[in-house]
């Protein structure tokens, strides 16, 4: 099916894009398009105007900058997947990128676009939450920084303002003893998650958990943080017992729906297991040897 007719704009700067957002009424922003184009084709979205941001070269970056890993709005999933920086220092991002859809989709789809899409089954939201990341938006009045915690409202709905363009995602660069991971359960290659869990652990000099972040996929109306589990972890030494309890707490706090992939009980168990695995990997990557974790 073909999309309905629309007017098209291809701004080359962020300022141009923002002024288009401000001046046009019925419009949609197109970035990677891997969700947007099907929505247009099924006429779930019928905007009069499309603002295609793919020619704004200044948004195409993935780099560390002044204590942050910054991901420009045009960085594709494949850019993350193939980045050496990511492979070396950002375990959860390295885990997630190859699990998003399939190779063709990853070549076009953008990480920021996936966040803006705010599909509760999307993987990146959990990673952003676990890292206590931020969303940077550019609007008519300038830049606004939105903590990941305050970004997701409802499925496909965020606190991004009507006239704002999401320009960047960022997460703090890793502490000396930090590790992160993402585990996702899906029925087959390329699927959305049935459940997923992102974990990030920062250890202090004595090997205690100084900071814990856990983000869950596909088990609530948005990606959510498992705050009870995080609280339980902080101040403790990593151990399989500790992670087991954290898994239980994450499952208790999750709110999955029964569907063709499984009932509520099954999904809660999956949250438990996936969270334990993500925590195990995160702890290992934070510098502990695995044996010590499983004691």
């Amino acid at each position: 099916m073909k999309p309905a007719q629309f007017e098209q704009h291809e701004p080359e700067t962020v300022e141009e894009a923002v002024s288009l957002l401000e001046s046009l009424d019925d419009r949609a922003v197109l970035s990677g398009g891997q969700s947007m184009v099907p929505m247009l084709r099924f006429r779930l979205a019928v905007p009069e105007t499309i603002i295609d941001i793919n020619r704004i070269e200044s948004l195409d970056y993935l780099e560390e900058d002044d204590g942050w890993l910054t991901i420009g709005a045009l960085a594709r999933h494949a850019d993350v997947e193939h980045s050496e920086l990511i492979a070396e220092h950002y375990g959860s991002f390295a885990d997630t990128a190859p699990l998003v859809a399939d190779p063709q989709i990853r070549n076009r789809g953008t990480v920021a676009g996936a966040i803006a899409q705010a599909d509760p089954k999307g993987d990146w939201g959990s990673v952003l939450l676990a890292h206590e990341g931020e969303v940077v938006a550019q609007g008519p009045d300038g830049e606004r920084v939105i903590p990941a915690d305050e970004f997701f409202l409802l499925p496909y709905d965020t606190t991004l303002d009507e006239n704002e363009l999401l320009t960047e995602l960022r997460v703090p660069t890793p502490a000396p003893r930090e590790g992160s991971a993402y585990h996702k359960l899906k029925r087959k290659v390329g699927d959305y998650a049935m459940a997923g869990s992102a974990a990030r652990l920062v250890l202090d000099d004595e090997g205690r958990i100084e900071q814990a972040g856990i983000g869950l996929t596909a088990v609530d109306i948005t990606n959510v943080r498992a705050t009870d589990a995080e609280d339980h972890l902080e101040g403790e030494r990593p151990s399989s017992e500790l992670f087991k309890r954290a898994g239980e707490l994450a499952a208790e706090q999750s709110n999955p729906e029964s569907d063709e992939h499984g009932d509520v009980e099954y999904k809660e168990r999956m949250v438990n297991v996936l969270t334990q695995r993500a925590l195990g990997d995160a702890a290992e990557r934070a510098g502990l040897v695995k044996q010590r974790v499983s004691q």
Partner: protein
Amino acid sequence: MTNTREITLTVNGTEHTIDVEPRQLLVHAIREELDMTGTHIGCDTGNCGACTVLKDGEPIKSCLMFATQADGSELMTVEGMEDLPEARGDLHPLQEGFREEHGLQCGYCTPGMLMSGKALLDENPDPSEEEIREAISGNLCRCTGYQNIVRSIEYAAEELEEVAAADGGTTVASGTDTSSADAPSAFDSEFDCGVENCCGGPTTDRNHDADTGGEHK
């Protein structure tokens, strides 16, 4: 047809300038404006990968992108494969692999599979089975169960290695001769793929095959 825009696409090395509506999908531009129907539309929803083409060397689904977004890009479609140097004027080693290893039955997914296979071998000339399966994970095949597609790509990897070795050595000419003696005759007359129950099974009318030049349906 209001509101059209001129774009330039370089497809398989040839530059085309066409007028498209902003809403026109790249796959429709390729098939309908350029009359290159080798790129297939399968699911029409971005799932199946039959419409996969290479954009600036990377595999993308041409049903999930507007033609205007490819303005100024280099595209490659299945039609361009035989013009590549490694095809040596005949079938590309990947296409040959699909024929030799029976990597297709109905053939609908094949152009997309070839493009994903091409992108993989360009990056990684000696892939493991797992890497091949990952590379074609965005391409659905409802006939083969993928086993033979994996073998086809493995075949091509080996063949390409031989081509590279031959090109790097002093026996380019003889290498070329040997392979062209092996391969092309299959399509000249009656085509027998050598696999039982292929091409529609035991009831296949052999004359019909011959009449259509042995097109592998």
